[in-house]
């Protein structure tokens, strides 16, 4: 029987801090080609980013009242921005009055105003944003990335999804299930209580648990030896290891009691606890603070979620509420990443499944619908151009007309930033190669990077 996995565990089980330190110092823990494990791998291309924090704004944020300023032009009133915009920073980036805190980081934001997608159906577009496919369950972006790069910290999952919804959004689908996202807080579960289920128990001392695991894995190895070629059984063995290591590391990271009151206040942890229209109490501050802590600990892909930006009616009230709930936490996250020198190697991505048509100011309407033909994403960190606007929509914000970026291009750009060749990162399944960017492939938006 082989002990390699167990001996590796023994090296790392007491070495979590060491590994995280190594990761922070920019040293890959282990370099090898994708081997179906979570070991960190050296990317094939020069990498600007080591990790991604995806600020997922579900429901379709109104781009024209957040980052895509559309003042009235000409004589005839037309759809456009109904909130005030100001110019911020040295770059003079236009940002809505609803986002004063985020606006402090204007010179770090790289705004993509020419986003477009294929459908205005929430579930489909949300799935496409996450997996590249809008109809079928496919591996999620975070799964592709951990498949390509592994993760820096072998004591934690490589891919976390906070305040998440359906499992199809964080599923590894046909990729080995070790690349599945780990949910923390599902279906509106209170984030203050949200944890990784069953992550601790005190019924046995650590030494006994470890011995117990040794015994189980020994049995499992014998079992799979008699059943060669069974990927499932191999995956269980891997996930038993990961689960074991998680119970050593995750509880401390989820516990915010070591954070100062000032920090909790900056992130607005526990605030915005009332539902306002479509804006749900997501404790987005806690999510952002946890995202920072897990990013520091070397998690490769972290998704945090706030919603719903789907304000059909009461556009003004609900959009204000959504912005209030997310503005300060996002700004605090950017502050902290910068302060810790992590922003240079962390790609922060903000956006949702589509945008919304504008309202014509003065016509008293307060309703919007869905618009997938033109909307906004922004990125920060990892060498993207700050205070820069890429692409644009027409004067009513209805569709992207310049610098168009499709989800598959966004995916390609993110993979490329991590040093993964976007259209070559493939996995053989059901008789053909699959890739995140789909049969059409994605185009890296090189203009976004300095």
């Amino acid at each position, binding site marked *: 029987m082989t002990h390699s996995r167990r001996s590796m565990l023994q090296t790392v089980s007491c070495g979590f801090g060491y590994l995280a330190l190594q990761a922070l110092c920019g040293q890959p823990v282990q370099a090898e080609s994708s081997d179906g494990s979570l070991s960190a791998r050296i990317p094939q291309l020069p990498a600007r980013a080591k990790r991604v924090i995806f600020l997922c704004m579900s429901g379709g944020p109104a781009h024209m009242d957040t980052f895509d300023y559309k003042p009235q032009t000409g004589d005839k009133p037309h759809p456009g921005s109904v909130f005030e915009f100001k110019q911020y920073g040295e770059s003079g980036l236009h940002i809505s009055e609803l986002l004063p805190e985020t606006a402090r980081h204007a010179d770090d934001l790289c705004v993509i105003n020419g986003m477009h997608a294929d459908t205005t159906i929430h579930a489909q577009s949300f799935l496409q944003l996450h997996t590249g496919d809008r109809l079928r369950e496919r591996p999620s972006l975070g799964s592709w990335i951990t498949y390509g790069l592994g993760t820096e910290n072998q004591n934690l999952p490589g891919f976390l999804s906070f305040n998440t919804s359906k499992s199809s959004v964080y599923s590894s689908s046909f990729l080995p299930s070790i690349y599945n996202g780990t949910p923390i807080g599902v279906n509106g579960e209170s984030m203050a209580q949200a944890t990784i*289920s069953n992550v601790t128990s005190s019924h046995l001392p650590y030494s*006994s648990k470890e011995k117990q695991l040794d*015994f*189980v894995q020994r049995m499992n190895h014998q079992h799979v030896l008699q059943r060669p070629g069974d990927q499932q059984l191999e995956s269980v063995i891997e996930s*038993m290891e990961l689960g074991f290591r998680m*119970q050593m590391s995750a509880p401390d990271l989820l516990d915010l009691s070591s954070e100062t009151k000032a920090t909790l206040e900056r992130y607005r942890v526990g605030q915005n606890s009332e539902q306002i229209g479509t804006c*749900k109490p997501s404790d987005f501050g806690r999510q952002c603070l946890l995202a920072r802590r897990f990013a520091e600990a070397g998690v490769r892909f972290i998704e945090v979620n706030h919603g719903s930006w789907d304000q059909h009616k009461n556009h003004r009230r609900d959009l204000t509420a959504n912005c209030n709930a997310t503005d300060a936490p996002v700004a605090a996250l950017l502050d902290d990443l910068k302060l810790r020198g992590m922003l240079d190697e962390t790609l922060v991505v903000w956006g949702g499944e589509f945008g919304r048509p504008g309202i014509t100011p003065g016509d008293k309407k307060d309703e919007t619908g869905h618009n997938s033909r033109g909307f906004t994403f922004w990125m920060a960190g990892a060498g993207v151009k700050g205070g820069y606007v890429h692409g644009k929509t027409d004067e009513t914000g209805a569709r992207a007309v310049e610098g168009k970026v499709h989800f598959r291009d966004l995916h390609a750009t993110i993979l490329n930033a991590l040093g993964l060749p976007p259209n070559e990162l493939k996995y053989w399944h059901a008789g053909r190669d699959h890739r995140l960017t789909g049969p059409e492939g994605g185009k890296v938006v090189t203009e976004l990077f300095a």
Partner: protein
Amino acid sequence: MWSFSTLKAEELSPEDVTFFESKIRPVLVKHCYECHSADSEELGGGLRLDTRDTVMSGGLSGPALVHGKPDESLIIQALRYDGTEMPPEEPLPEAIINDFVNWVSRNAPDPRKSQEAPIPKQEKTESDLWSLQPIIDHKVPDVKLVDWPRNDIDRFILSRIEAAGFSPVEDASPRFLIRRLYYDLVGLPPKLEQIEEYVSDFESRGQLAVSDLVDELLASPQFGVHWGRHWLDVARYAESNGNDGLSRNPTFPHAWRYRDYVIESFNQDTPYNQFLKEQLAGDLLPTDSPELRDRYLIATGFLALSAKPAKAMNNDFDMDVVADQIDVVGRGLMGISVACARCHDHKFDPIPTRDYYAMAGLFTSSETMWGLAGNEKLTAPPTDLHVLQTAAKVLPPEDFVETVILLESDTGKPKAIPKPKWEIGTPLAMGVRDKKEPADCKININGDSKKLGESVPRGFLSACQIDEAENLSIEAENSGRLQLAEWITHENHPLTSRVMVNRIWQHLFGEGIVRTPDDFGKYGEPPTHPQLLDHMAIRFQKNGWSVKQIIREIVLSRTYQLSSSVDSQLLKGDEENKLLARHNRSRLTAEELRDSILAISGQLDLTPGDGSIIRHRDILVNKAGNLHQPSRHRSVYLCYLRNSPPPELAAFNLPEFTTVTGKRDDSIVPGQALYLYNNLFVIEQAEQLAKVLQDSAKTSEDRVNLTFQKILSRSPTADEKKASLELIEFTQTETQNELKSWSSFCQSLMMTNEFRYID
């Protein structure tokens, strides 16, 4: 009226054709087709501009143009941004608009063919989709290995294996087979004595021993528990509404009666067609027996279990409830998604919007009774419930006081709980019944219940019309659900029997013949063995829609009894096991794992669970904290609250139960390992088993043997015994606690893949 639109393309003058091709068609293609053609994601205003006929038949606002009258033509008005504004982004140049004016003035000559014209109303929707073609009794294929097959299933399977140049693997050993049969038929592990008895019986009597075992298991009341659970997944059965979108989650205190009904139906082997009729129209079925009457009423709970979005501010609430009913009937019973047609004609499958509203009329003509909805009207208005005549009246315990109370939002004081209309303890059931005045439903344009189109006569799917059936016409005074039930269960219905035999097959093989059990549409997977699927569907109907009979036939096939071991050549050649030249290894489901752990710890109570822990509680689950209670009954009797699943099951990919789930996700995540390490249930059961061991075996060696036998149904090898004793000794040293040292060992064996996977 005489009109140019009747002119055939070849009768147009060459100038007309040139004008259309150079001035009109390119503009339509570039600026209009995105929203107004057969390929549109969402058809704008129901208007298609991609054929001559659809231009004239028009959309929801009427014909797109009037010959010779540009000023009266909608298309010209829209291009001029007069009322309607098209294209929406910006008006087209004046010159192009003038071309269109000119074109309409010339009576809009249009050479395009009309093949793609929409289906005329009331007619059959034609489709070449495989699943809508009649079920055919295919000839059983010849095979080379004539001695191999045990029945016709084997011949269908073997002929494909042979055609691919492979051979089936060995038969499974009797030890593996009995374990597989136990789990597949009753969801429990066999006891060691049962294994030994069977193995010796098999050695002397071969397949006779197998068929006796199968008959015994089919007759066990645990069969209904296990197969009922499969159906409850399809029926999106749950004991609460689930998050209404505003975080409120009211209980369904009477839903458990439907659960018991389902379990009983599988145990009685109620013919599947009758089972469906009861669930769709039980309230309309004739019966003289009050017991049967109650049973039929409970069955209609199937249609009342919807996960409803909140009523507050939601004009579409009633239609949301209907949407769920159409979905559970569409995907659950027929494997076809009708839901998309709520807003637009289905893009891929032959389901026009008219069909959706034809079916919607059946349900808008029915009253859906979910009960009091946690006494929170913003979530859902309270409804009546079926009052049962023969069920026992059960009072809450004497000391019961409801602790989950809603507060008045302005004063913060507890809201008084309204007094229900029924005496406390009255036996009630969720369900449906006909409205006093049934009526057809109007098309909701783009799914918006405030924008009504024409009324559609109540009916079914036009793509599966069953012409010869006589009892399918819906009379004005009935909802039409009874006719729906007759139509769905008609022997010529192409989907119902195929979908069910496929579900059964999937539960026995791990994968269905169609691997997307809820989607037999264009984007579902095609069947791996289409002829076999038809063969089974016909066998199923011929055997009186008996679920037990078809299961029996399948598990007695040689195909089912194959080993799951595979050599590398076959593995490489058929990675996904589409040929079924071997059996699929499968993991225990959440329920099977919990039940198995209880079975080996000696704690499992095989009697049916009584009612539900929430049977007296009309409350909001989200206000209640943890409602779950430990139980020793089989998992199906736990409380399946949406968004608050039983913690003993949640780690193993439990579905959300908000929609039809024909196939559970079986992905492996570290959360499952954490469950095995740290969940209190696992720890407690391991301790229970350790206590049993203390009492039944004296020496450590005997105890290790016994633990292996109880959990893995075999004795340990010498190596394993040594490692076990080491583990026990180590834990003893670390904890100074003998019980812990043994329970930690028991827990270890419960964690192993050998225990958690079925070969």
